[in-house]
């Protein structure tokens, strides 16, 4: 007999009696999970774990490390020697940008539209 008999009423508390019923009904969350697993069968078992979190921590990273950066720089140098392309090609998918290529992100000199 625990002291938890008088529980404060919360808005969405399920009582012990309903648990039996719920076991028979698949919860919406579980059916959504099943949907996801059929679409992405390779999805890892620890979703909230390291992978997701590390992706979050690495937001904004352009190069993995200085080796990556130097490799990219070297590749670009080698590429540029044989073909003297007069115009700069657009930076797309397979071209790893170097600091020189990165468009200078100019600070916005335009006033906020909230102040307009």
């Amino acid at each position, binding site marked *: 007999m625990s002291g938890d008999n008088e529980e*404060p009423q*919360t*808005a*969405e*508390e399920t009582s012990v009696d309903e*648990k039996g019923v*719920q*076991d028979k009904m698949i*919860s*919406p*969350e*579980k*059916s*959504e*999970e099943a*949907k*996801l*697993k059929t*679409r992405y069968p390779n*999805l890892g078992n620890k*979703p*909230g*774990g*390291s992978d*997701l*979190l*590390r992706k*979050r*921590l690495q*937001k*904004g*990273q*352009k*190069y993995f*490390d200085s080796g990556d*950066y130097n490799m990219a720089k070297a590749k670009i140098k080698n590429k540029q020697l044989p073909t003297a392309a007069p115009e700069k090609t657009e930076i797309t998918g397979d071209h790893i940008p170097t*600091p020189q290529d*990165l468009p200078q*992100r100019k*600070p*916005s*000199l*335009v*006033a*906020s*539209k*909230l*102040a*307009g």
Partner: protein
Amino acid sequence: MAGAGGGNSDVQWCFSQVKGAIDDDVAEADIISTVEFNHSGELLATGDKGGRVVIFQQEPESKNQPQCRGEYNVYSTFQSHEPEFDYLKSLEIEEKINKIRWLPQKNAAQFLLSTNDKTIKLWKISERDKRPEGYNLKEEDGRYRDLNTVTTLRVPVFKPMDLMVEASPRRVFSNAHTYHINSISVNSDCETYLSADDLRINLWNLEINDRSFNIVDIKPANMEELTEVITAAEFHPNQCNTFVYSSSKGTIRLCDMRASALCDKHAKQFEEPEDPNNRSFFSEIISSISDVKFSHSGRYMMTRDYLSVKIWDLNMESRPVETYQVHEYLRSKLCSLYENDCIFDKFECCWNGNDSVVMTGSYNNFFRMFDRGYRQDVTLEASRENSKPRSVLKPRKVSTGGKRKKDEISVDSLDFNKKILHTAWHPLDNIIAVATTNNLYIFQEKLN
């Protein structure tokens, strides 16, 4: 049901103002990223993705319209942060303003802290409404007079001029965060403040910008063992030694700075027990706390996770005392919300002045209010369609079942690109500021 607010269930909300461009083509820089009233409610600050801060000031109540509280008009606007590229770490540093926090007013000037992912800045906003005129040795345009022509002595006098509001950065607090800053909070001692990133919390003195103390560090020795990150942190409103921080696993830890210099051992840990049978792939993601806010009284704190708002009594760690469902109908849409990344949206929440009502945003430009005393809740919408001056907002309803009543909107028709992540409540009156993607709505209580 008319509305919810102020402990009086008859509060009705009216449209007051809307700021921002009408066009649908939203520039990224214009996306509002934070909204905050100052301690008196006279000033309302917004920050955006372009690193700009806009401050609105409430006009004094006019005698002509006693039934309406003053309007908010632009007071000052400035570029707080600029984009940077950290070449050493190969990191692009966004100029987006993550949080703004006002300092309590001590003199004629106003001070606020604004932060992006890496740097916190203290801004001084001051008014200039007079200037000296009649210099002895200078002409009005600044040129020095020929001394031979100076025959009399005169003393400059201060003459009134058009009000000029100047914003100047007084302190820049940088290089203290390896990870992305998600919160700042000013201590009740008005001398210190904390800044929190994904893994660490630092304590600063407002006067000293070249030193900060690390007070929480949850970085594991081996990053492979990382299981949770810090999502929000706040100082207690009147106990200067107490602060809380929330995590991506749905726990809140309360720390007492008197216990030790490094508060890695929490004084209290608030966590609702989870039913292991209900655990799913989504459980941890939707339990991640996106915001934590103390009540004004300091007795309670509120947390926001993906689907609900929870009120915790600081004296009880085992479970929240109140739980409010914001949009429970989304539980059966979690698969698609995961695919379109909406499941990671970070909603904020806020208390009204006397802690009787709480508010948070949702999708389709809906926002929700929960009246704790009257156990009522209401869904309202911020849209240009309801933007006639002083028009009363009609409660909205999302239909979950098969039968959709007239005026209800079905879950599948909700626009998940129209999210209200940031809301703020005036500290004293029933005035609220609600930010849609790029517009700021101000609603007021209907006064008769």
